């Protein structure tokens, strides 16, 4: 089978299932010699929330960066496979062009411009747009309706707002580019529980009302599986398990390794062992 026909087949698959994003068998190598991802494939249906789970170093962030073409800054490159956004190959597009087409990444660690105000930060998100100030104003209002806190703090310098507000600002800024899909890297990191909940609620809201699809990389498996419809688990740069959120939540391995539940109840962090049970990825 030639690769042309397979690509055609994948394209057809993407069209048939109405996938907004389809990643096929990508391999990523850093620095020409370090293999980070191997054979990673995943799909995001239009209007879906898909979670990417796994330990540190499993390759979640790399996957997101591969999709949004941000690997070059870290001396990485996609050496194999294809990435289709709305049915078109996008591996060779610049991150800008990708944003213009509607796919934007919110980086881990909430990279806001600290010396700009919240509102200025949000406006920087609209720089790829060509549809005039009125439209941008409208969207700014839309962002504020979802993120009430940001409206209250819109004149504050982002650097002096709390972690939660910065995360909201980062998502809000992404929204300003009118994306069809947002790649969200660790939205819950370092945030207080009730803020995490708030942010996930907003994500769900945006997903429902604005029809934005999400691919989110998350350590907080519990949260992620509560809001996502589908999940992929990465380990050592490979997808080892996937399934709809419900089946993952019920999976014994996921329970133990990612949700911290053993025999039906939460394990105490005091009782951790110095050895790990062998993982049997049997899905």
């Amino acid at each position, binding site marked *: 089978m030639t690769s042309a026909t397979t690509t055609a087949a994948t394209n057809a698959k993407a069209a048939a299932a109405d996938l907004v994003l389809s990643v096929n068998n990508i391999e990523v*190598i850093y*620095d*020409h*010699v*370090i*293999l980070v991802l191997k054979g990673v494939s995943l799909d995001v249906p239009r209007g879906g929330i898909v979670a990417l789970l796994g330990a540190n170093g499993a390759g979640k962030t790399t996957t997101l960066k591969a999709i949004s073409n941000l690997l070059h800054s870290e001396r990485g490159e996609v050496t194999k496979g294809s990435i289709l956004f709305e049915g078109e190959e996008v591996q060779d597009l610049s991150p800008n062009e990708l944003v213009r087409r509607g796919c934007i990444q919110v980086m881990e660690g909430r990279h806001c411009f600290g010396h700009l105000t919240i509102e200025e930060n949000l406006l920087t998100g609209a720089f790829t747009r060509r549809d005039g100030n009125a439209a941008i104003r409208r969207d700014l209002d839309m962002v504020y309706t979802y993120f009430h806190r940001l409206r209250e703090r819109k004149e504050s310098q982002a650097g002096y707002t709390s972690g939660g507000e910065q995360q909201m600002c980062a998502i809000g800024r992404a929204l300003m580019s009118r994306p069809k899909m947002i790649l969200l890297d660790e939205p819950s990191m370092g945030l207080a529980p009730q803020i995490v909940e708030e942010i996930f609620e907003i994500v769900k809201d945006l997903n429902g009302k604005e029809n934005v699809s999400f691919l989110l990389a998350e350590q907080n498996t519990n949260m992620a599986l509560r809001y996502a419809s589908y999940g992929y688990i990465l380990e050592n740069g490979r997808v080892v398990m996937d399934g709809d959120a419900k089946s993952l939540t019920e999976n014994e391995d996921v329970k133990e390794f990612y949700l911290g539940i053993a025999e039906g109840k939460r394990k105490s962090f005091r009782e951790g062992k110095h050895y790990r049970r062998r993982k049997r990825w049997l899905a």
Partner: protein
Amino acid sequence: MFYREAGQFKTSYEADESVFPIRQDRYGIAIILLLAIVGVPLLASEFLISSFFVPVLVFSLAAIGLNLLTGYTGLLSLGSGAFMGVGAYACYKLTTFFPDANIVLMILLSGFAAAAVGALFGLPSLRIKGFYLAVATLAAQFFLSWCFVRVPWLYNYNVSGAIEVPTRAMFGVPVTGPNATPTTRYLVALGIVIVMTWLASNLIRGRIGRTWMAVRDMDLAAELIGIKLYRTKLLAFAVSSFYCGVAGAMMVFLWFGSAEPDTFNINQSFFILFMVIIGGLGSLVGSFFGAIFIWGAPIVIKTLPYYFDIAIAAATVEHLTFMILGALIIFFLIVEPHGLARLWQIGKQKLRVWPFPY
């Protein structure tokens, strides 16, 4: 491909922390040293030695000096030319005061003068960082350049304002001055460079190197693990200036034979900075690569027309050299922003995993 590392294992931390833990690297460095010590004097022409090998040694040492400050400690300096000058003038004064003293000793001692001046001009680094510090070192550069012209004591009130290197011999062999052969001067310079490179590598691999790099990477955290910033930065300035000073003394005594005040102007500082950046910040071997490249490339470019019998005016060649060199620098920086040292490292890594890609 040439690496056969199977069976090379370490049973002690001493061995694990040696400079060249891989046997093939040790062979490699031994071959390079042998070539440098025996091969070059035997095979290279006097012209090549005095126009290529000696300058490369001088610049390598200066580049190491700047690299210790900029590459390892993260303090940007535009004063390395001036610090070289301090070394040169100090050495000149020392030979005046102690005409009978060993010249190599004098060259090394002049480094201390440079170190003192360097530490003094490093004082602003306690308060300011980055570009602001670069500007402060620029001030040092201008001030010292001014001194080289305006303080006649420095050049023994010589009418021409230049310094002339006196003849000095070691074991009866003239080392400096007009009677010293290029080979002798080369071997002396080589000896100094080898020893000082070894010392620098010792420093950066130990506690001091780590405190420097800690300050470079995250000064807040460095302070938090008990590193005193002011001491660390001043030490870096002092050591860096020492290296530059010795390089400056070597430049005048083992290469030029005499020097005008403007030898050590701002251009010299930029020249060294180019070497460090092209060679690779934070890499000793990069300092050598940088010096070889920046000094060697123009020579190659200039001689190429002769080889191919192309008649071009000397001035044109000069201009072309500048243009090509500029283009090469930009090209290298685009291909590998981390300098030649990183290219070297990647190449080596490729050879180590050969025939595999990773």
